[in-house]
């Protein structure tokens, strides 16, 4: 009786008063997480602050994490640069068109592959999964794209990556977790496979469709490699290629001499602004994107 009393008293006391050991522990993890958070936010703040600063202050290395001599000159230069605007428009096109193709193809494939007892489907699923472990590689891919006459076309940014196997697996897992009784009931009512997909399965799968839409969209927005490899027409370049040209070049490259002279003056400032401008769409949707990306990790990890 008495020991119980003591432990009850102790635990109530603990709720109000932490033991010294616990106080030290909580202090340490609070500090640790704060340090990690700061180490992530500081470089980002530095970039944003510099982008809003005076070009002279940037070049002199005066900007730490707060704008010095507020100015929008860099942004004016960014938005009056034709290459960047072209890149922006192209990227928006590739992202929208590409994502639509991605989601349609992935949902169709996932539906057929999610159904049990259909001949050949398991083999096809294996063929998809195998491509995750083994691919043709850069050079054969490049030759075949040439054979298909896809080099230097807008289609090469959309078609070759039409289905991401990871997303296919996530969608298929999700479809498989929908109770089979639903399909059986629909069948008894005379519902065809296609009708079941469009009027029952898809409305129930909004969550997973949102997840893969965002995965694909962010993927397209950030994509660099395919454009780097398959495109060499400046009119078709997505934003990332122009970014690479400007951000990583140590010299100003612009076919227009006036623009080049203007850029030389603002060179450092411009880089900071570009980093911000290219990331703005993702930052705008960030809370939304974050929520669904986390959801995707969860669905993906159910199957392991």
């Amino acid at each position, binding site marked *: 009786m008495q020991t119980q009393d003591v432990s009850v008293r102790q635990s109530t006391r603990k709720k109000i008063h932490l033991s010294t050991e616990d106080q030290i522990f909580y202090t340490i*993890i609070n500090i640790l997480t704060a340090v990690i958070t700061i180490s992530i936010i500081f470089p980002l703040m530095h970039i944003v602050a510099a982008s809003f600063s005076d070009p002279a202050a940037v070049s002199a290395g005066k900007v730490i994490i707060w704008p010095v001599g507020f100015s929008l000159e860099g942004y004016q230069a960014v938005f009056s640069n034709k290459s960047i605007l072209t890149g922006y428009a192209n990227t928006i096109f590739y992202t929208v068109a590409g994502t639509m193709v991605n989601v349609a193809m992935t949902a169709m494939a996932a539906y057929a592959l999610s159904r049990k007892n259909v001949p050949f489907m398991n083999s096809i699923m294996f063929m998809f999964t195998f491509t995750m*472990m083994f691919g043709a590689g850069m050079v054969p891919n490049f030759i075949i794209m040439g054979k298909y006459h896809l080099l230097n076309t807008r289609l090469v940014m959309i078609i070759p990556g039409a289905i991401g196997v990871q997303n296919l697996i996530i969608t298929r897992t999700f479809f498989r977790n929908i109770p089979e009784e639903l399909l059986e009931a629909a069948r008894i009512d005379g519902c065809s496979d*296609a009708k079941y997909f469009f009027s029952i399965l898809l409305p129930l799968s909004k969550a997973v469709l949102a997840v893969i839409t965002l995965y694909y969209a962010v993927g397209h927005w950030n994509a660099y490699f395919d454009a780097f490899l398959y495109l060499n027409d400046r009119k078709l370049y997505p934003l990332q290629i122009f970014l690479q040209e400007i951000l990583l070049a140590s010299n100003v490259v612009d076919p227009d001499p006036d623009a080049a002279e203007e850029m030389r003056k603002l060179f450092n400032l411009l880089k900071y602004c570009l980093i911000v401008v290219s990331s703005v769409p993702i930052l705008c949707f960030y809370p939304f994107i974050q929520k669904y990306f986390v959801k995707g990790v969860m669905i993906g990890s159910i199957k392991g």
Partner: protein
Amino acid sequence: MKDKNDLQKRIVQNWQLYLFILLPFIYLIMFKYVPMYGIQIAFKKFDPVKGIAGSPWVGFQNFTQFFTSYQFERVIKNTITLSFYSLIAGFPMPVLLALCLNALRSAKYRKVVQMITYIPHFIAVVVMVSILRQVFNPVIGLFGILYQFLTGSTAPDLFGSAKAFAHLYVWSGVWQGMGWGTIVYIAALSNVDQELHEAAEIDGASRFKRVIHVDFPAIVPTIVIMLILRSGNIMSVGFEKAYLMQNNLNLNASEVISTYVYKVGLGAGNANFSYGAAIGLFNSVVNLMMITLVNYISNKVGETSLW
């Protein structure tokens, strides 16, 4: 005979499903398996005029050329160094952070930390490398400014140093992936039975002791799986980041298999398709072997950890 009829019947019954898979299947063949047919140029002397099938066979000549070239050792060494270092430095961080996050008392503070630490995951490679360049700029970057402030002398140019390359590459990867990597562990931690915590608390276990004896054991299976998955990629270092961070000054440390494949296979000047394809194939086969081996081990481990 009856089986055959049954199969036919099942195919006919499901004809709509085959319509659904038709386009994806054509895509799969055209864009994944036809290029694999093109791998044969690794064993040929590819001639664009004669095409893939018409080029003459040369056996393993392209492979031996790679194995005996002076680049071989450097490229393999850099690839393994980078991925091994990434594993050692990058793997424990999310585990540690997840345990800390889970133990935080303020749910609001935890949300803020999660929100911020996830951000870098969404940054594009080109932008990431640009951020690195700006931040580590000796004069105008955050690093340069702080270095100047603390030591009084100008910071070294880390981007032009072969010695610093691996550290920059790996730690920027840690910076970018640490927060995102916690998600799987936090999911596992949310499944920990609260009664275990309560029981331990009544026994007088401090919060730290409970992290060690309750939380940590709960995520060990997840840790093992993640570790196994990661080690399957030990021979692959992605093209993009290494290529974008490369310059003539750090090439000794930054040339990895994928960037080398690009340069010899498709790069400007004397591109040798067959040679590039051979190196790419060598890398793919090694990766496939690693993944198969790792899968085999994970099945074994998975079985033993089931009890």
